[in-house]
């Protein structure tokens, strides 16, 4: 068992704490024609680099044209930083017109000193041109616009590709991967039930509570059912479902396909004469188009149930009253107006998720970027299309 030694002191580069680096400069009568001697001593290592760098800047300058001898005999330790600083000193003196000679370099330091000198000869990397803030902003705006336009164009192209593949599969249904479709139905549908149910229920509760507060003032408490029925069935149920599915499954599609892209699995599929779109995209799109309407209906039910619970708790509207009022407030058209959007949203979410996944390139970092993009684009498109539907419905008078 060795005696306990102060760890910190020995850890600092073999006891560097005891002695730093020093530099002495002056006229040396021993040298011919008024030579100037710069002697380095001590430890020329990383720990002392700042002090050394300062000392070098402060050291008296040799008179113009004098020959300089760089005496390194008393350098005890040398690392890359020390060697670099000494080389830089020699170089600067040389540039000022002094004839520089290096003397007393210890043999164990010579290899490092030479290696650093050779490395230092490499020209510094080019400095990037100065950026103009306003110009940069214009450039960035232009680039973003062009990229967004390209993206939309590509997405439409991708939709076309998937549609053609779909059509081919209808002609030869045996090629459809039924197992894969069922797997994704389970992943995107069944496994989403708990979270979607809870959130829809809570939204129903909140809507009923806020509505009740306002309607109570007019003595029209019962109309809370109309408010709930129309808003949940037409908009909120389907929109909540689409947003949750975009966050849950759209991102999963991108991550799954993106990881396969990084592992070159997608390339492997191509080399085996299989079609990545048929194998990866169609089952996911199909699964989502099946599950999203079902999920939306489930969300409608849970939302209304939440509203009914809240209506009973705060307004003493019984479930029987609630159902009767609901019957008179909404027709089957309202339900259809909500659910008819579901397959469209499903297609958009699946398209964006798979498209961004296939666009992943090379690194794992790109999987993350594309996944974020898929979620943002998916939710964005869902809301835009929902607005289009609203305009359409109002024009048709539905």
């Amino acid at each position, binding site marked *: 068992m060795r005696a306990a030694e102060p760890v910190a002191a020995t850890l600092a580069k073999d006891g560097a704490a005891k002695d730093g680096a020093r530099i002495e400069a002056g006229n040396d009568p021993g040298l011919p024609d008024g030579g100037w001697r710069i002697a380095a001593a001590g430890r020329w290592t990383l720990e002392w680099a700042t002090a050394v760098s300062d000392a070098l800047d402060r050291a008296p300058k040799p008179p113009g044209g004098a020959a300089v001898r760089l005496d390194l005999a008393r350098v005890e330790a040398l690392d*890359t930083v020390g060697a670099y600083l000494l080389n830089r000193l020699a170089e600067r003196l040389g540039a000022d017109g002094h004839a520089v000679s290096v003397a007393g370099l210890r043999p164990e330091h010579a290899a490092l000193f030479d290696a650093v000198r050779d490395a230092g000869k490499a020209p*510094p990397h080019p400095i*990037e041109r100065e950026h103009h803030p306003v110009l940069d902003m214009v450039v960035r705006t232009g680039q973003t616009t062009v990229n967004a336009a390209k993206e939309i164009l590509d997405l439409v192209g991708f939709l076309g590709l998937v549609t053609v593949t779909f059509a081919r599969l209808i002609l030869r249904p045996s090629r459809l991967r039924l197992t894969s479709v069922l797997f994704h139905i389970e992943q995107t549908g069944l496994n989403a039930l708990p979270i979607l149910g809870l959130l829809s229920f809570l939204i129903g509760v909140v809507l009923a509570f806020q509505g009740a507060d306002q309607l109570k003032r007019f003595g029209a408490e019962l109309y809370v059912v109309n408010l709930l029925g129309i808003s949940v069935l037409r908009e909120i149920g389907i929109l909540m479902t689409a947003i949750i599915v975009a966050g849950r499954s759209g991102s999963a599609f991108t991550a799954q396909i993106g990881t396969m892209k990084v592992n070159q699995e997608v390339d492997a599929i191509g080399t085996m004469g299989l079609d990545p779109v048929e194998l990866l995209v169609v089952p996911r799109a199909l699964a989502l188009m099946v599950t999203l309407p079902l999920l939306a209906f489930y969300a409608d039910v849970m939302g209304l149930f939440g509203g009914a619970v809240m209506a009973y708790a705060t307004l003493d509207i019984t479930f029987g009253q609630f159902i009767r009022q609901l019957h008179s407030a909404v027709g089957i058209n309202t339900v259809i107006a909500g659910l008819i959007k579901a397959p469209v949203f499903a297609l958009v979410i699946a398209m964006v998720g798979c498209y961004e996944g296939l666009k992943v390139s090379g690194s794992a970092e790109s999987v993350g970027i594309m996944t974020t993009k898929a979620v943002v684009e998916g939710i964005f498109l869902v809301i835009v299309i929902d607005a289009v539907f609203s305009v359409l419905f109002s024009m048709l008078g539905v």
Partner: protein
Amino acid sequence: MAGSPVIRVRGLVTRFGPQTVHDGLDLDVERGEVLGVVGGSGTGKSVLLKEILGLIDPAAGRIELLGHDTADLDRAERTALQARTGVLFQNGALFSSMTVAENVMLPLKEHTDLSPALIAEVARVKIAMAGLPPDAGTKHPAQLSGGMIKRAGLARALALDPDILFLDEPTAGLDPIGAAAFDTLIQGLQRSLGLTVFMVTHDLDSLTSICDRIAVLVDKKIRVGTLAQHLADPHPWIHDYFHGPRGRAALDAKERNQARRHEEEDARRLAKG
């Protein structure tokens, strides 16, 4: 501290669930040597490396780095010790969001109080010493080839002038010419910087050309020796490893190289005399 091993492992035991990977493993790495670590797949080469680096805790045993038991250190001491070791991971492990120069500058910024200008200059020297072209510093890792990523990783590992350099399969994934050039680079840096190198490798050419000693992981323990000692070892795995077709090819290449060097020296001597 001269004379005492820079890495000392005693009675190391590693378990993953019911599986024992190392059982009472002892290892000494001397200052200034290049140690190659070999072993079959699943014998725990990389695990040993991670245990020495403190990334995985062993089930039992002591690991001393530069004379300090890694288990006894507090946070600050551990950080000080980490500043004296450099690691080149198998795939470079460069931070992909930073340029090569920023990668090399990061440890300097974190562990030293150098001025930004000096840090940039030192990073430039390191990048050049790792054999990269000057414009590589401004590139991101994604823009580099496999060989350049390894060199950039090496430049970052050497940023703080470590005493010990750990290499995890440094030549894996490089073409033979690139691998040989990388071996030469490591040897040159090892000599000029006085490094101790701990190298996990599968590359027989690296083992025969730059390693002073070779540690073979067999039977959950380690056997350290020179190439000649391993060649005479009757252990079936070691025998197959060094006497298999690839082992023979690497040894033949080494002999040819030595013979050529002798001829060149003779020719030089003749030319002089």
